[in-house]
């Protein structure tokens, strides 16, 4: 493998990894607060990408506006899903909410099939993202720099919200102990809604960038990235935002580099993440950065 190729693989892994990380953050935030695997998150990701597509093709919005609007709408959708499908089940056994989440996921997927049709669609890419730059022997798509950079900015913003604002304090309090947070006057339901909103916005951002990077929109496009991002969240330690970032980026590297060095394994690419998941759950179920929860009797 030449040095130039290696650098390209490196940048590709960073791009893929940061996209996983953005989705993983949504999973990890919701899990941290509600102990719920939000299966519908992968559909949120898909819808975010579609909203941009429709904004551009139907309404002919300028590109940045379409992007911003899509993120807003998707965030709202995340909140609505929580209100309708998860909130009534807060006191139910955890698995009930999980089944509801699976139901919502299938529902959104099939609504997308009904309304958007299963034909793959191509999203418009502004030319400044597409024209390759040559750096010596390395051919760079500006996208492979743009995606990690924007993702990094978004993550910084998120970390600011979670660790420096009052709402973030509320989130951290709820994830420690939801009952006590009620008693301490934390507006629990509002904070949970906010969490869903932020998580969904990040998933939408990731979906949009995914559509730019791998320009094909399909109603089932969210399923595999969604699973993998969840695995990334578990890998990093579910409930931990830093863990989700680290796990996402590492998963991106593992996937791209394994295929780069062992091309004969390319067919198994989608299985890596699951094998990784099973191994983590067996040997370090708390993930890389997670904290061990106590078993309460």
């Amino acid at each position, binding site marked *: 493998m030449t040095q130039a190729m290696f650098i390209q693989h490196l940048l590709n892994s960073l791009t893929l990894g940061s996209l996983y990380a953005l989705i993983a953050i949504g999973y990890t935030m919701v899990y941290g607060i509600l*102990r719920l*695997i939000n299966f519908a998150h992968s559909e949120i990701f898909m819808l975010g990408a579609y909203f941009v597509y429709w904004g551009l093709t139907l309404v002919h919005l300028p590109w940045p506006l379409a992007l911003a609007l899509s993120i807003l709408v998707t965030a709202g959708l995340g909140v609505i899903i929580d209100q309708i*499908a998860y909130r*009534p*089940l807060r006191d*139910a056994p*955890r*698995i*009930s909410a*999980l*089944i*509801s989440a*699976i*139901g*919502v*996921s*299938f*529902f959104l*997927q*099939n*609504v997308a*099939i*009904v309304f958007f049709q*299963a034909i793959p669609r191509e999203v418009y890419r502004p030319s400044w993202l597409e024209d390759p730059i040559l750096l010596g022997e390395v051919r760079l798509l500006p996208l492979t720099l743009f995606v990690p950079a924007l993702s990094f900015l978004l993550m910084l913003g998120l970390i600011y919200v979670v660790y420096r604002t009052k709402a973030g304090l509320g989130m951290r309090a709820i994830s420690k102990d939801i009952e006590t947070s009620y008693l301490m006057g934390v507006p629990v339901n509002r904070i949970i809604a906010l969490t869903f909103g932020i998580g969904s916005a990040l998933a939408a951002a990731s979906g949009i960038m995914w559509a730019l990077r791998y320009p094909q929109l399909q*109603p089932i496009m969210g*399923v595999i990235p969604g*699973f993998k991002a*969840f*695995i990334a969240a*578990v890998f990093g330690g579910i409930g931990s935002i830093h863990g989700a970032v680290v796990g996402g980026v590492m998963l991106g590297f593992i996937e791209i580099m394994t295929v780069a060095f062992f091309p004969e394994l390319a*067919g*198994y690419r*989608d*299985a890596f993440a*699951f*094998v990784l*998941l*099973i191994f983590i*759950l*067996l040997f370090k*179920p708390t993930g890389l950065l997670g904290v061990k929860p106590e*078993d309460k*009797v």
Partner: protein
Amino acid sequence: MSRKIPILLNVLAVAALGLFLWWAEHSLDGYKIQILNLIAVNIILALSLNLIYGFTGLFSLGHAGFMAIGAYVCSILILSPEQKDMLFLLEPAYDWVQHAQAPFFLAVIAGGAVAALFGILVGMPLLRLGDDYLGIATLGFAEIVRVVANNIPRLTNGALGFKGIPSHANLWWNFGWCLLTLYCILRLVRSNTGNVLKAIRDDEIAAKAMGVDVFRYKLLSFSIGAFFAGVGGALLASLVTTIDPKMFLFTLTFNVLMIVVTGGLGSLTGSVLAGVGITALLEWLRVVENPISFGSWELPGIPGMRMVFFSLALIIVILYRREGLMGMREVSWAGMLAAIGYKGKAQ
């Protein structure tokens, strides 16, 4: 009540089912017979998942994986060597795959047995995980099975899968297996072992404190469930006569989960009723996917609409009737006789 009356009633019920099947075979068209077959297979799948999740509390999402294993094993055993010559276009089959042959009944058992074996292999490490982690890990297992099936063309014919699988699975086989599954699982959950399983479901820590070897019982339940999932997959393969890795997506597990949840977790009666109802409903919903014409005006068919309704139904069930149709209740002969006022001798 004396023990004889329920046995007599059971024999009568089986005879009535036999009569019904005989009638169906002779007077219903192929499509309706196919629906009946699907009902039987879905009941088998629902019962097996109910054993794992409803009675033992192991949230498993790996059913599609076990079904795939059962389907592939059974298909390989019942396809003739000549058919395999024609099928394996990409790469020739392994020698042992090429020559493996078994009669249908044994092939189905083999499918179940291999699935159960995988159940044990997967269960040993995974059953230590709790709740949703177990769900995700077993889902991962099912996905791995699918990816592997895609990538070993000499064993599974890769993405092309198998076509022209002999359609041995008629009404008699399917309902025969269905009854057998019901009988086995009923005996199991009513036995002492069944009580232990329910104890684990209700409170694992308490069961452990009572000296139950929790892990062994979980493994037992999981592998028996996997066996019947494999059987269901094998019958399904012979019923639809074509299989490929795409068939065993998560959607398949979702359908089975839907039946179990709607019927009631921990109720075999519920699984049977929901198996009948939901299979019929799913077929009926095909109407919305086909074009409907009102005189000169035609409503175009909308693909995907069926699953929209279906998933919406699951959400509504879980939001408004979480215990499902039956909760944990069962319909038994004793209960039915009591309801119509029959008083037998005290036991």
